[in-house]
Every structure is written in C-alpha cells, then in structure tokens.
C-alpha cells in the first residue's frame, strides 16, 4: 500500500511517540530515522513508553435505537495523571463518532484526517459515506503505517442508510465489525457490567445509564481510567451528547454513604 503522507505536509513529525525521550530529532517534512546508535533498542524503548498509555476505558454498543458510545477522560503517562478532562469521543461528523484509546495525538490526528476524507467523499459522490466505508478508509491508512509506532485503538460508530454501525479499528491494521466493544486498560471491568446488563431492546435512557455505569465501574477499579464519564447516543438524526458526570459524584450516587452507629464501629475495630 502507498504511504498516505498527505496529512503530514505542513507538520514537522517525530518518528516515535513519547515526547520526553531524549534526542535531537530533526523534523523535515519526510520521515527520517533518528540519530541513535542502537535504532532497534530505541524503537523498543519508544514502544514501551506508549504501551501503558492505552490507559483508558471506552466502550460502544449497538441496540435497538442506535449506538451508545461512552468513555472516561483521564490521560496518564506512566504513573502520572496528566489530565482529567480529555475528550476521548471525537466527533468525526454529525452522524459519526470515533473513540480514542492509545496515543492521544495519533487518535486525534487520524480522526480529523478521516473527517476530511469523509467530507470529500460526500462532496464527490453526493451521498454520505457509510460507517463501513469510513472505518475501512481508516483501517487502510493505519495498515500502511503498520510497524511504525502508531498507537490507535478506536471504535467508529455511526448511523448510515443500513442502520447503526460499529467497527473496531486498531493500529495493527485490524478491523472488526461487532455489536459490543470496549477498548482500553479498563475494558475488562467495563465488559463485565456491559455484558451482564445488555439487552437489544433497551430504551435510550436505560442504554445511556448502562454505558455510564460500565465506565464508572472501570474507573473504580482501573487506575489509568477516571475523570468524567461522557456518554453519547447516535440515532438516525445523528449523535447527541447525553451525560458528562464526574466519577467521584457517580460513586456516591450509586453507593451512598450510610452512617453507622458508634457501637458498631468499635466492635468492628476490636474484631479485626
């Protein structure tokens, strides 16, 4: 496949993710190898920097009334929480959403690039692109950069002529069609809640609540997820943002604190 470097024309680029890896990399418009003696070791190190950064929880599922897309908002660099307010659900166009997991820059850039391509498709063909087509465009691009250090684990969700569509696309070049996906370090916890609460014929409110609850539970157990839960719903008219609740508030909402009497407390302390 030909490398699509059209999006990189006016950017200076680094070949590897990870800003704080030392080095004076010159940044001309084309891909250049960094000046290091041990290139393989360097690449391995760079990949290790990125690996824990898929610290996130995102999920999406199809149900009767469309697609629910939900995500947390924490960004972490190793053990350091760099932000609690990252927008992980990217609005590609008014009827398609993408989720962000992995390298934030990679996800943001390639989703915007995908938005451009979708718009051009619309203009040339006088019809909206299908979710199938959009996810395939992204997957083809990511495949052509395979092995070069991109880190993207995204879900493309949208509503097109054939109804609701959901695809999982990653930087290995994989692309899967499915009804329920969760991506990120908190995904096992989210899957637990999502899979046990899922029914195809949920109402929109119930589905939004299910998405919110699943993300909350993931943020509760996974250190790399947290911040604010965002839930979007994609219907025939396009997407709409439903909630943006802080997980701390949600915790006390789901598990309100029950004051206990003093006697009970002392008994527990001596029994321990």
């Amino acid at each position, binding site marked *: 496949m030909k490398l699509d470097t059209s999006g990189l024309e006016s950017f200076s680029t680094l070949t590897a993710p990870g800003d704080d890896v030392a080095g004076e990399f010159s940044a001309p418009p084309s891909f250049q190898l960094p000046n290091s003696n041990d290139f393989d070791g360097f690449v391995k190190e760079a990949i290790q920097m990125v690996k824990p950064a898929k610290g996130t929880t995102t999920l999406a599922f199809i149900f009767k009334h469309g697609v629910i897309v939900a995500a947390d908002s924490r960004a972490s660099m190793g053990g350091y929480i760099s932000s609690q307010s990252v927008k992980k659900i990217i609005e590609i166009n008014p009827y398609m959403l993408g989720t962000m997991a992995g390298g934030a820059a990679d996800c943001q850039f390639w989703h915007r690039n995908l938005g451009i391509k979708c718009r051009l498709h619309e203009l*040339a*063909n*006088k019809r909206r692109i*299908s979710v*199938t087509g959009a996810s*395939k*465009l992204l997957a083809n691009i990511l495949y052509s950069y395979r092995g070069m250090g991109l880190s993207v684990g995204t879900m493309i969700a949208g509503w097109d002529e054939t109804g609701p569509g959901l695809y999982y696309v990653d930087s290995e070049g994989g692309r899967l069609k499915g009804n329920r996906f969760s991506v990120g370090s908190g995904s096992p916890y989210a899957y637990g809640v999502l899979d046990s609460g899922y029914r195809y014929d949920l109402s929109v409110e119930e589905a939004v609540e299910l998405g919110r609850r699943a993300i909350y539970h993931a943020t509760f157990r996974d250190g790399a997820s947290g911040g604010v839960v965002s839930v979007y719903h994609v219907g025939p008219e396009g997407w709409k943002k439903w909630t943006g609740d802080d997980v701390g508030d949600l915790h006390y909402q789901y598990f309100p604190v029950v004051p206990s009497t003093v006697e009970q407390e002392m008994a527990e302390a001596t029994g321990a």
Partner: protein
Amino acid sequence: MARYDRAITVFSPDGHLFQVEYALEAVRKGNAAVGVRGTDNVVLGVEKKSTAKLQDSRSVRKIVNLDNHIALACAGLKADARVLINRARVECQSHRLTVEDPVTVEYITRYIAGLQQKYTQSGGVRPFGLSTLIVGFDPYTGTPSLYQTDPSGTFSAWKANATGRNSNSIREFLEKNYKEVSGQETIKLAIRALLEVVESGGKNIEVAVMTKEEGLRQLEEAEIDAIVAEIEAEKAAAEAAKKAPPKET
C-alpha cells in the same frame, strides 16, 4: 491551423483542442451504439458488422460487463476501449475493497471520463478515440441509469442516447419516440432506434439488457430476429392503416 493540431496540449487561437476534435471524428466513424433507459431496465444495442465466416463471433462481444451491475458499450477505436475497460474494471474492484461497497454508475462514469480527460492534458499521449455508453443500477436506490462519456472527458446522464455512426439520426428518432417504458418495450425501442441506420436482422445487431435481478443478459440472435420481425410487422400495419383509412365509420 495545421500548426495547432500536432500536439494535444496546444490550444488553437480560437480555443480548440484539435486532437480531441479529431478523436471525436474517429468516434463518428465507429459502429453505431444506442442506449435506452426504462423504468426497470436499461438496454444497450450495438451495430455489428457481419462477422467473417471463419471468425468466432463470441470473441467480438461489443457490450461488456464492468461489474455485476454495470455494463458498457462504446463507439470508436476498439483497442482503446479494451484499455479503458480494463482500468474501469480494476477501479470497480478497488472501490469494493476500500469502502466495501459496489460503485455507483455515476462514480465509475466519472472515473472513466476523468481518465479520458487526463489523456487530453498530458504530453506524448493521444486521447482515447471512443465514446462510451455506460448503464447500470444504483446499488443503493435500485434506479437504472444511462451515462455517456466522450474523448474530451465530459459526461452526462441520459434517458436515451446514441453514439457512433449516424448517431444524429438515431438521436432524432429517439427524441421523437422516447417514452418511459419498461421490460420488453424498452428492448423494442432500442432495436427500433438502431434499425433506423442498420440493415435489419439479428446478424447485424448486438443487444443486451441489464436488469436489477439478473444483471446483464445478452440477447440471442434468434430473439433479436423475433423482435425485429415484430417491429417490421408493426411498421407494415402502420403503413397499411395510413394508406387505407378505416372503413368502420
């Protein structure tokens, strides 16, 4: 004028690209081709020079498939046609691969026209010497379409059109007699139009019908002969009715 017609990339002072116009001349010398769009099918008909005795007629098919739901007929240089058709077929599959959807008729027409235009603006090449008639069904809406492209790279949609030899007479006939019909009537209209300029007989006409369900179907010689016979009979009846006014008054 002679100085401005050698190179394709040179305009003449009065704004002509002579090579493109000469290519259109080549089209005008090619076999007649006609396309008619019905409500539920599209028909392509091409004039066939009678095949030599020793020639295998099946190897000279003039109406070809670009994909399951798109077909093409052309007038002009047949060798150029082969190249263009191959590129279009590859593009149809490439589109299926990149967006997991079949092409629309408009998309592939735009592609072919774009290709024809590219060869009017490059050095060292000449334009494709053919005009194409492209028919098919939109994979989403199921509506039939007919498009035409020409060597300059322009394209447009038509209800019925003709290209190649004597295309003006055929088009005049179609303008007078076109009606939105369906099924067998569309086939008859196409053959009637072609018969204006071609000697009658299944040997001299190649006809193919595209329907949504079946895709492209080439008509057998016998079938064409039968329809031609029907048309002749109708013509004769119309003549007779004109000559002898009805006596039942």
